């Protein structure tokens, strides 16, 4: 997507309109004018609910993980390694169920890439987890407690020389290389590049090239699957980029849940300064990818601020300020943060309904949160969505699902501002119950 020359002079509202138009009129070669219209109609559903207007029908955008592969008799390992299976099952599932948004394609990840990189941060099917289980994070202090100063001083150098060598076995030689910021004048250039003569570095560069090829092979398959779904089914992608809350960046995959909780007591100033340092990085990450994809939605999974994970005071003082700064930074660029709130957020609703975030500019997707309260408190300012429970998908009956969706839409979807979805990414669901979810969404969603 090319931004207009006067982009920097546009208001954030004008930027949003530009991005939404670009999404709705994406340069896709549709199979027919009807499919093109269906695509535009579906994007319109999102435009309406985000703007808190009443849509033609409630958009149904479940989070889909391994579900399609389970349905068609394939394991997670097959989906992660055989891209024909990835493409075929992903397409077939969307064709048979016809939701209003494509599931979380990025979540079906390439096993071969992680083998090349010797990825330690996660286990994946065949590499530490069973063949039919999704990837899982290895909880550990990947960033040490005494490394805040290095991170704060130069995040890029910290990532390159300390974090990446720890997280990817194949990138260990990065620790030996100087930071790129040394490259400022001619006399310092040769010593910098001499580092690349070391055999382990040469080996690493080969691995990086292999990793690039493996990633591209997967990306092409993944894009082909999504492209076919858009072009022939008229179902849009629901995210064009990703970001995270600064507290989660630190807590999820750097200091670890436990490490960061202890840091809060032992070195609170370092935690705050590091989070502030991460704000512009988190904004820039999304802006770059959303500018490429032309889709304004920014997928933001959040974790460590959920009820029980910290006190209300800590949420207000520690978690929210830098996350809010990220949200405002994205909104300023005309992007639409689409926050995937895992766990329960009942204690946080008053805080996240923050009046300094302009109304009608983002989406809160909830999981185990009281949706009636969420609607009353957050729903008056922003679009909300969710929250059909995973246990209902896995162990409920079609009748129970129908009743749940009817009740949920009755509480939340009147006059718009609501997206029907699963509470979490679905790896498992009884097929008849899943069907009942879609059918109930269509039936009651049209009656709002």
């Amino acid at each position, binding site marked *: 997507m090319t931004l207009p020359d006067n982009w920097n002079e546009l208001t954030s509202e004008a930027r949003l309109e530009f991005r939404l138009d670009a999404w709705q009129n994406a340069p896709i070669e549709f199979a027919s004018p009807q499919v093109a219209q269906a695509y535009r109609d579906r994007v319109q559903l999102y435009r309406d609910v985000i703007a808190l207007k009443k849509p033609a029908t409630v958009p149904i955008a479940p989070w889909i993980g391994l579900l399609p592969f389970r349905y068609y008799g394939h394991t997670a390992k097959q989906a992660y390694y055989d891209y024909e299976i990835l493409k075929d099952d992903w397409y077939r599932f969307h064709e048979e169920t016809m939701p209003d948004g494509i599931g979380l394609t990025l979540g079906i990840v390439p096993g071969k890439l992680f083998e090349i990189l010797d990825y330690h941060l996660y286990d994946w099917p065949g590499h*530490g987890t069973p063949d039919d289980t*999704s990837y*899982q994070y290895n909880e550990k202090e990947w960033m040490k407690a005494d490394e805040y100063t290095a991170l704060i001083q130069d995040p890029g150098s910290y990532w390159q020389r300390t974090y990446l060598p720890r997280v990817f076995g194949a990138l260990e030689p990065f620790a030996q290389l100087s930071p790129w910021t040394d490259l400022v004048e001619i006399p310092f250039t040769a010593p910098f590049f001499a580092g690349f003569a070391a055999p382990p570095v040469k080996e690493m560069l080969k691995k990086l090239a292999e990793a690039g090829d493996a990633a591209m092979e997967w990306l092409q398959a993944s894009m082909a699957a999504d492209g076919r779904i858009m072009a022939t089914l008229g179902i849009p992608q629901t995210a064009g980029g990703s970001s995270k809350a600064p507290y989660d960046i630190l807590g999820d995959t750097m200091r670890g849940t436990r490490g960061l*909780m202890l840091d809060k*007591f032992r070195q609170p100033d370092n935690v705050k300064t590091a989070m502030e340092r991460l704000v512009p990085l988190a904004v820039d990450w999304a802006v770059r990818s959303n500018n490429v994809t032309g889709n304004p939605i920014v997928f933001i999974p959040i974790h460590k601020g959920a009820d029980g994970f*910290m006190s209300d005071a800590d949420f207000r003082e520690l978690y929210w300020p830098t996350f809010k700064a990220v949200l405002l930074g994205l909104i300023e660029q005309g992007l639409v943060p689409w926050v995937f709130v895992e766990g329960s957020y009942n204690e946080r609703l008053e805080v996240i309904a923050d009046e300094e975030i302009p109304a009608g500019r983002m989406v809160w997707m909830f999981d185990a949160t009281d949706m009636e309260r969420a609607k009353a408190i957050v729903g008056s300012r922003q679009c909300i969505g969710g929250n059909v429970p995973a246990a209902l998908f896995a162990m409920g009956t079609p009748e129970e699902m129908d009743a749940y969706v009817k009740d949920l839409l009755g509480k939340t979807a009147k006059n718009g501002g609501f997206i029907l979805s699963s509470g979490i990414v679905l*790896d*498992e669901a009884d097929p008849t119950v899943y069907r009942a979810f879609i059918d109930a969404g269509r039936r009651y969603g049209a009656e709002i």
Partner: protein
Amino acid sequence: MAGGLKEAVIELREADALRITDELLRSGTDPLTVVSSCKEAMDVIGQRFANGEAFIPELIMAGEIMQGVTAKVKPYLQTETSSARLGTVVMCTVQGDIHDIGKDIVVTMLDIAGFDVVDLGVDVPPDRVVEAVRDHKAQVLGLSGLLTIAFDSMKTTVAAVEDAGLRDGVKIMLGGAPVTADVVAYAGADDWGKDAIAAVELARTWVGGA
């Protein structure tokens, strides 16, 4: 002085708690008094957690301070005092799931509450659970899981305990974010807890220690 230690732990002032511990031990205070001050403080924090006034970070920090104090006290103990333990609990995250934070908090809280805890770790196959329940004569088995696939592993594990003829001698509790009473019924367990405090309560009730 020992009261000062209790206050410091309750207020999660780690450096103060460790300093006071050193002072108490140097001045000849009975090491068991030091330990019991800490336990009293942990009870207060546990109660605050149950009341929604303290949260996971507070529990983890308190556990960390408790460990620090225990390490300091150890050299002062004349002999290994085997204070009466309430009973034995085998804990694990079930096969196919490697999430450990919740399980680890439960292990810490059970230990502080006076249980011998056999922590089998994560991604534990049913046969290892059976072996541990048998070898340690556990009265309670705690199965944890964060993923929905853990439901099936919980069921398989309970069935394996049953098949080994051990089910009558052990109470089984489940825990983890997606666990509900429905999962207890599905897996054939005895009960579930929403957090570490609930797990301790269940264990206490079952072994008659409460």
